[in-house]
């Protein structure tokens, strides 16, 4: 046995060819065998016997391979079952937790005003001409013949009022403010508060039906389903009015068949990259329509430019200024064309946050603007100080649902049945601002409608409306008595009536907001119980007794002995039980689940209720119990789920303390800092523990990798995108500025730095184990480096396109090039990369040396033997990394580069401290790292931080399933890369003779998933417990959604990437080096 130094320089590394290596290895083995045979005293070898032995050997190899494949299939089956359990738990909890609202079919009817049921006189106003008909006004005198609604998507309130701070999104749209001040009787401007979620589809529902959206509808934002509930457009259609629509095609999917076909011009709404097509369509078609007012009664024009500018560049960008100025001119031109019978409404459906995104419920996202204009004096102010529009959206805001009764009454149609809003004061106060009778009448009619709806709703829901002091019912009674009293007076104080009914409306709205559609506690509890049982199962699974082959692994003598035993036909027991464990687990799961699934389905079929899934929760629980029983049966002792080492305790403390922290909004908000704290703690402990290592080299290496691990984490933490709640203690660095969503020029350098350094760093990790052979140099040094480089080029092109660096270039040229480049990178990384991974030989080199003077005594060495599994599996991680690297912005790419280095450092730390096989700390740290880098790649547990524009990196338009996949890879790059790295915990520095690798990988995956399952369980439990908390929708609910999503994605990636990768890897290594047993 020669020392390694002699061997490495003897021969150039073998060409990276699978067959060559195999051939060399076999030849070397034969040479060695021949040499051994020569040395043996019993030199006479029977030919017959040798052939028999070869046959046996071949048969044994096939048997072992088959046994591995079978075990892999059962392991994958087990994880598939675990995925199902998680999905069931999440689905049940979600169905009870995410609010659902009962849809009522009732519709308001023109000649049946809701005041019919009230105790006081039906009408407050004297009868008007055409009362009770749509032409004269159903419930209120009709004021306008037709209306034009211009919806400027994402029009934030501060865009419309003078601010004077020089920001590029301020003071660019002054027209509406000026007209409101100059002629208050013709126009008014007020803040317009959206009810979250602030996605366009949800907002359109609210703006037309007057109801509160529920989170359960959020999922339909991309599908767009027709509104079935009573709404303004439905009332208009029933009254025979004609409607025209221009712009955002969401309207067409919400109101199919409502609009006059040949006049309407819908445009695709999801191409965020395109700032102008939709707006140009609107502006091109709206002016001709203004000259043919006889052809329509309602014109809806939905502009998307401001929203897209926000998504693409963020508000603080020249494109935004230009867009707002364009809108200003457009409104000005449109106003000039409005005739006396037409009402013009300009409004936003929601605002945008500091970066131009929306979806959540931060102040910037919900604060929009409403401007109404009439060419004859209609509008008034009840107080003179109301003439000037409020300086901020905090002053005198109206709710977006208030548009519904206002518009309905002004156009003479009934208020939609479900409405919860109230009439806007300015629209009914009269030019002098003194028409309190009109205001009181409108308010009372609306309030009566709300009361009627509430009665219907509670009847349908089976709950009663108790009349306790301060309750809506008591307020209603009070308002009615005020009304009756005032109506009898000579000089009637209608203002008191108005405020009494307004009070009723406010109380009802408040009650609906807090109590809307009850949480289904039973379903939530089922979800939590199933999730908790799943966690327990996984804990028992990962803590079960080992296969007890740890001691024997590296003993070639024992292996030889075992092999010869097997040659003689003995079947080792360990292998049998090992294969059987996962198999029996899956069998138990099936056995437990099937009867109840079937029973539930049959019962549902029998009773015709259609809820075929009714047996699912019971089936899940029974199958979990069956698996647990099987796990306990498989071993003599009940395994302890408590950790045995300080490292184990550290893993438990990290996981548990974070889970407990989710009960507090502060700890949830500052999760990124807390994760850094934990990561550094681990690094410090491992640096100190390294001092316990026996040799100086090991101590130095251990400390070095720990320090590197810490510093990289701190460096990566610089890349962050603050959530609103972290202000003012946080500075965003992810984009050029806090109000932008483009990268700064210096950030464009980061991908190139990574492409220069990362492959070299990886090489540095492979060289000590002599694994930088075979395909590794080409793969890492050229292919991987080039992929990273091209990703950097992509982001340069993207910046050039966004910043319009080369105005002379043909429009869309840069966009075209960059999209095809991105497609090429993704195709190479994921398709070609996977193929290469499947085909790649182990990263080893076979070296044969003949010692001088002894030609017969050939010595054979395999460089990279000690890391044969890990070095090869690394390719898969690099493939995934390249794809995520492209889809993350430059800053995120940098974070992912540091992440990779941290993974490798972590592996070395684990290896030095012998923590690779039994300790839970490795997978737990990977899970923490993955979560940490979710934050460093520019995300937060808030809907608004989803980088939707990543869908357009490899595509021009939305395409399923690729767009959601791109967004998912962008959003969850951290957890996905971490999942891909999990097998390395077991594979790193592992030689081909190591047994039971699959089992170790599955255990590591188990610990890894336990972390995410515990987080999901904790966020679930806390969100359920704190369901009345003020911060529920801002903090707890988004964190729960994130945890659930990550858990499912990690489960899937665990099967599709990690386990599948291990299968390919083990087969490739096994084919070259033979199969270890077990």
């Amino acid at each position, binding site marked *: 046995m020669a020392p390694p130094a002699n061997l490495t320089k003897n021969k150039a590394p073998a060409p990276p060819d699978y067959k060559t290596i195999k051939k060399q290895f076999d030849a070397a083995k034969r040479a060695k065998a021949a040499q051994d045979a020569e040395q043996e005293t019993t030199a006479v070898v029977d030919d017959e016997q040798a052939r028999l032995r070869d046959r046996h050997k071949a048969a044994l190899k096939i048997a072992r391979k088959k046994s591995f494949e079978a075990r892999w299939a059962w392991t994958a089956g087990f994880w598939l079952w675990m995925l199902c359990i998680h999905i069931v738990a999440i689905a049940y909890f979600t169905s009870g937790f995410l609010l659902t609202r009962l849809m009522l079919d009732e519709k308001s009817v023109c000649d049946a005003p809701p005041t019919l049921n009230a105790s006081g006189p039906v009408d407050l106003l004297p009868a008007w001409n055409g009362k009770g008909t749509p032409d004269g006004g159903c419930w209120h005198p009709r004021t306008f013949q037709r209306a034009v609604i211009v919806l400027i998507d994402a029009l934030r309130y501060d865009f419309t009022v003078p601010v004077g701070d020089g920001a590029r999104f301020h003071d660019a749209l002054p027209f509406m403010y000026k007209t409101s001040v100059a002629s208050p009787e013709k126009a008014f401007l007020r803040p317009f508060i959206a009810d979250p979620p602030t996605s366009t589809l949800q907002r359109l529902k609210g703006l037309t039906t007057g109801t509160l959206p529920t989170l359960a509808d959020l999922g339909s934002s991309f599908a767009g389903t027709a509104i079935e509930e009573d709404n303004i457009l439905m009332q208009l259609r029933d009254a025979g009015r004609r409607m025209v629509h221009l712009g955002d095609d969401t309207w067409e999917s919400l109101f199919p068949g409502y609009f006059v076909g040949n006049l309407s011009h819908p445009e695709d709404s999801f191409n965020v990259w395109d700032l102008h097509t939709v707006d140009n369509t609107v502006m091109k078609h709206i002016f001709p329509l203004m000259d043919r007012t006889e052809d329509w009664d309602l014109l809806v024009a939905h502009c998307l430019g401001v929203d897209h500018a926000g998504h693409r560049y963020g508000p603080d960008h020249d494109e935004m200024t230009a867009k707002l100025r364009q809108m200003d001119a457009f409104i000005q031109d449109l106003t000039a064309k409005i005739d006396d019978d037409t009402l013009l409404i300009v409004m936003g459906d929601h605002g945008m946050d500091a970066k131009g995104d929306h979806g959540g419920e931060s102040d910037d996202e919900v604060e929009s603007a409403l401007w109404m204009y009439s060419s004859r004096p209609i509008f008034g102010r009840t107080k003179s100080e109301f003439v000037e529009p409020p300086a901020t959206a905090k002053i005198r805001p109206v709710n977006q649902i208030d548009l519904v009764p206002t518009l309905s009454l002004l156009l003479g149609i009934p208020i939609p049945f479900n409405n919860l809003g109230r009439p806007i004061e300015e629209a009914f106060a009269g030019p002098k601002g003194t028409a309190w009778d009109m205001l009181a009448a409108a308010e009372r009619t609306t309030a009566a409608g709300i009361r009627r709806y509430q009665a219907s709703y509670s009847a349908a829901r089976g709950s009663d409306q108790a009349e306790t002091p301060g309750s809506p019912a008591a307020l209603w009674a009070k308002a009615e008595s005020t009304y009756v009293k005032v109506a009898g007076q000579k000089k009637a104080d209608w203002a008191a009536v108005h405020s009494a009914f307004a009070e009723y409306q406010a109380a009802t709205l408040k009650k609906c907001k807090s109590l809307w559609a009850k949480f289904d506690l039973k379903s939530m509890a089922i979800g939590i119980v199933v999730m908790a049982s799943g966690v327990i199962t996984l804990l028992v699974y990962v803590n079960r007794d080992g296969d007890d082959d740890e001691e024997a692994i590296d003993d070639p003598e024992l292996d030889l002995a075992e092999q010869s035993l097997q040659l003689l036909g003995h079947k080792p027991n360990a292998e049998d039980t090992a294969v059987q464990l996962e198999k029996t687990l899956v069998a138990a799961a099936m056995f437990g689940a099937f009867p109840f699934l079937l029973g539930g389905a049959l019962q549902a079929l029998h009773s015709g209720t259609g809820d075929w899934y009714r047996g699912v929760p019971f089936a899940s629980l029974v199958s979990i119990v069956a698996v647990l029983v099987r796990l306990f049966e498989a071993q003599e002792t009940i395994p302890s789920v408590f950790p045995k080492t300080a490292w184990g305790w550290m893993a438990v403390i990290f996981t548990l303390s974070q889970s407990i922290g989710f009960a507090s909004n502060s700890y949830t908000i500052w999760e990124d800092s807390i994760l850094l704290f934990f990561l550094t703690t681990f690094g410090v402990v491992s640096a100190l523990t390294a001092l316990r290592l026996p040799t100086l080299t090991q101590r130095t290496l251990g400390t070095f990798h720990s320090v590197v691990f810490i510093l990289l984490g701190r460096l990566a933490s610089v890349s962050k995108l603050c959530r609103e709640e972290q202000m003012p203690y946080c500075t965003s660095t992810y984009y050029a500025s806090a109000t932008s969503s483009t990268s700064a020029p210096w950030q464009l350098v980061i991908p190139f730095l990574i492409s220069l350094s990362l492959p070299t760093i990886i090489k540095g990790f492979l060289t000590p184990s002599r694994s930088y052979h075979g395909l590794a140099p080409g793969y890492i040094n050229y292919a991987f480096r080039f992929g990273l480089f091209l990703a950097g080029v992509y982001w340069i092109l993207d910046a050039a396109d966004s910043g319009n660096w080369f105005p002379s270039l043909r429009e869309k040229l840069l966009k075209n090039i960059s999209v095809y480049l991105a497609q090429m990178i993704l195709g190479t990384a994921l398709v070609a990369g996977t193929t290469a991974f499947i085909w790649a030989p182990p990263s080893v080199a076979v070296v044969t040396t003949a010692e001088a003077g002894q030609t017969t005594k050939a010595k054979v060495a395999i460089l*990279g033997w000690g890391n044969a599994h890990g070095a090869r599996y690394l390719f898969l991680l690099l493939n995934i990394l390249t794809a995520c690297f492209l889809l993350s912005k430059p800053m995120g790419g940098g974070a992912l580069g540091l992440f990779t280095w941290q993974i490798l450092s972590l592996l070395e730390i684990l290896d030095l401290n012998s923590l690779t096989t039994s300790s839970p700390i490795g997978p737990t740290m990977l899970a923490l790292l993955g979560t940490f880098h979710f934050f460093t790649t520019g995300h937060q547990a808030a809907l608004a931080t989803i980088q939707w524009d990543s869908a357009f990196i490899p595509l021009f338009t939305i395409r399923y399933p690729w767009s959601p996949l791109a967004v998912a890879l962008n959003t969850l790059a951290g957890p996905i890369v971490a999942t891909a790295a999990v097998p390395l915990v077991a594979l790193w520095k592992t030689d081909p003779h190591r047994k039971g690798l699959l089992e170790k990988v599955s255990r590591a995956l188990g610990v890894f998933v336990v972390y995410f399952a515990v987080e999901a369980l904790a966020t679930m439990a806390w969100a359920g417990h704190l369901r009345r908390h003020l911060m529920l929708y801002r903090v707890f609910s988004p964190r729960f959604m994130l945890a659930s999503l990550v858990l499912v994605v990690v489960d899937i990636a665990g099967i599709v990437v990690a386990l599948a990768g291990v299968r390919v890897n083990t087969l490739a290594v096994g084919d070259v080096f033979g199969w270890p047993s077990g």
Partner: protein
Amino acid sequence: MPLIDPVTMSSSLTKGGAQLPTAKGKDAPSSEPTIQPIQIKPTPVAQAARHVFPLLLASLFALQFRPLVADPVSTMLTSLPVVALLQLAYVLVCLPAAGSQGGGASTASGKQKTGRKVRPGEKKKGMGGGAAAELVGPNAPVASILSLVLSVLAIPPLYIAFVCFGAPLYTLVAHTGLCAAHLAVLSLFPLFYVHGVDGGAWRAVGAFQAPFDEVFGGFVGAFVGAWLGAVPIPLDWDRDWQRWPVTILCGLYGGCLLGRVLGGSLFWGKRVA
């Protein structure tokens, strides 16, 4: 199939414990540093002072708490010399200097110092005359000054450690720096005084293999306390005392004093498994 495998056969590249025991066995003398717990000097003054100093430090901290919350930087700055003086007096009065009899410095020569194994408070006969002179030997003031210098040198690394745990890098520099200074004076200074720059002893301390005594207990307590002190910072209670680095300092002092007292009494001589 015993192929020659240079990589496997070389030192530490495969996992599993196969090579570990042998390596350990070979290096055993140097890899398992055996350091003895530090004893407080057996003089009556030292025995009294060991109880007085923690009380003094605790009352100083309690007195300074309000000003600390109001103005962390200037309070930390003004109290630092006082704390340093108290610590200086403590090490001079109570602790044996590095290299002196009873000092835990030299680890390799443990055998010849059998006389060290004395319970606290127990008088050892051999420790009269010359030994007593050595206890307050002329090197003590020099050692204390050197230790103080070394502690000051440790402030920048401690600052970096704070930053690594998430402290801001270039804002609140004075806050973090002074906090690091307090940590150095409180926990590292006595360690430097008793162990000097003995690598083996420091390795044992860093690896938590040293036996508990007042010095090591204070060291562990200060770091654990400072670590726990970070816990209340994120909470949105809007209290003044949540200001950086008040909670860290609280944990640091609390942990250090608790660790010093427990390490000197209940856990004395015990080692972390």
